[in-house]
């Protein structure tokens, strides 16, 4: 509904200069970053899979991983993605109140996810799984920890957006800014979907664990 301007006969020239593409720079940038991040997480997940079953000592994945708990945190992260889209929807409709509420909700859910992860890490260390203990610990903590850092950056970013929307009132013109943050957030969610399956669930397939 906002993108009908460039289709008219005389090309519009924004103040920052002529653009050969009607796509916002920030959004292009974010998609390229995400494409790059695929390789980033691909390497981490690849390392994890290659080292799967190569730990010489325990604890092994089946000894520590807690599927019900992680299912809940996975669910929380998925629902934060849902809040993200309705926050963006609200901002596009200029419904600033709901935009702030839902954006805060996303950050809040993200924080809950991080809380789960902190609890999980603590619990695992108590069970004897450490960064230096065996290969499973090494690869597991580095992979999920990197993902956790991504989530933490996302939470900070979204909270900053909420604060910024008070400092200088946001309107639907700022939707791209939120959309870019949202793309990042969804991607972090998507990565977790993969991690949840390949790191957590697969270990409990009868006969396929390692």
């Amino acid at each position, binding site marked *: 509904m906002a993108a009908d301007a460039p289709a008219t006969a005389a090309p519009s020239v924004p103040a920052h200069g002529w653009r050969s593409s009607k796509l916002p720079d920030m959004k292009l940038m974010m998609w390229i970053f995400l494409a790059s991040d695929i390789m980033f997480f691909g390497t981490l997940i690849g390392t994890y899979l290659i080292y799967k079953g190569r730990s010489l000592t325990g604890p092994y994945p089946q000894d520590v991983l807690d599927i019900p708990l992680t299912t809940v945190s996975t669910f929380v992260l998925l629902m934060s993605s849902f809040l993200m889209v309705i926050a963006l929807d609200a901002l596009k409709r200029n419904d600033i109140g709901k935009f702030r509420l839902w954006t805060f909700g996303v950050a809040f859910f993200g924080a809950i996810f991080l809380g789960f992860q902190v609890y999980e890490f603590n619990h695992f260390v108590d069970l004897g799984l450490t960064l230096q203990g065996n290969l499973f610990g090494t690869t597991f903590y580095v992979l999920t920890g990197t993902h956790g850092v991504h989530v933490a950056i996302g939470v900070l970013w979204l909270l900053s957006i909420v604060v910024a929307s008070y400092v200088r009132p946001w309107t639907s013109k700022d939707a791209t800014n939120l959309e870019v943050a949202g793309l990042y957030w969804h991607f972090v969610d998507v990565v977790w979907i993969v991690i949840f*399956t390949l790191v957590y669930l697969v270990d409990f397939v009868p006969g396929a664990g390692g």
Partner: protein
Amino acid sequence: MSSEHDTHESHGIRGYVIVALILAVITYVEFAIIEYEIAWLGPGAILFWLIALSLAKFVMVIAYFMHLKDDDATYTGFFTSGMVIGFGTFVAFTFLMTLPASLPEIRQAALTVSQPAHGEAEGDGYGGGYGGGISEETRAAIESDGYSRPLSDVLREGPPKDQTLRVTPPAAASDGWTVALSTPAFGAARAEAAPAGDEAPAPAEAAPAPTDAEPAPDEAAQATEVASFDPAAAEAAYTANCASCHQANGAGLPGAFPPLAEHFPTLVASDAGRTYVISSLLYGLQGEIEVQGMTYAGVMPAWGYLGDDVLANTLNHAATAWGNEALLADDFTPFTPEEVAAQRDGGLTAADVYELRNALDLP
């Protein structure tokens, strides 16, 4: 505000709600598959459904929440190129990394299956490194040769001069070619091989006897002198060259380096085994092996640059230290530098040694 906006809102949000509900249900199904072990679903099927379901979630989030379905194709292009390169690279890479683990089965299958048509043996393609596979004839030659000579000689020259190779064409299309060697007496072959390293042709040298072993019938007095070894020098040689991997106590490192303690004597119980351990020192060993129920995929480097005496010393240390001595066969004779020298200049590869190990079916 206007009804127009409201319709849009409810329509957009309703779509998102449906997607979110589906995502939640899929997550629960994934959880349920694992938590309530479903007996009628085999492991393969479970794995398939887990991956399929997570893929569905993956696609839904990207298509609907990230709006890629309706957004500009440029974004899809960026993301897809990343996915294609990333997926392609890491699948190939994971395959490359896990390939050695699956090689022994492939190789074993290929070697045990009788191949009516030569050259089609797929097992030959999986040698690992540059050794390539060995043909059925060579394998037969090695086996019937009694491992009296370095494997490389067998590979290069074929059967020894004093042996005759009989090749029988297949009687029926389904049979393979049969290859047989008329093998001379074992001791004679051994006597011929051992002194190859030096000029002394005395057959007696080849059958050394330590003091505690029963002397061989044709043993000469000088043999005792040649066969004995200095335990201190042996230990020094082992400590300098072997202990960093196989450890000073010979226990190896589980999963990384196989143990020698309580294992080495079983290797050298046969003359073929002696040939093998010398080859593995001279040419290294590459491939997955199983020792005492644990799998080792490491690489043993080639130690051929060390002197014959050093190599013989390390072998003797491994054979006698850590209580191994008690496990030795009664007729065990210590390794001699000459025995090592006889197998030099073989030009084997680590992969050939691996072939040899598999062919021998060593513990």
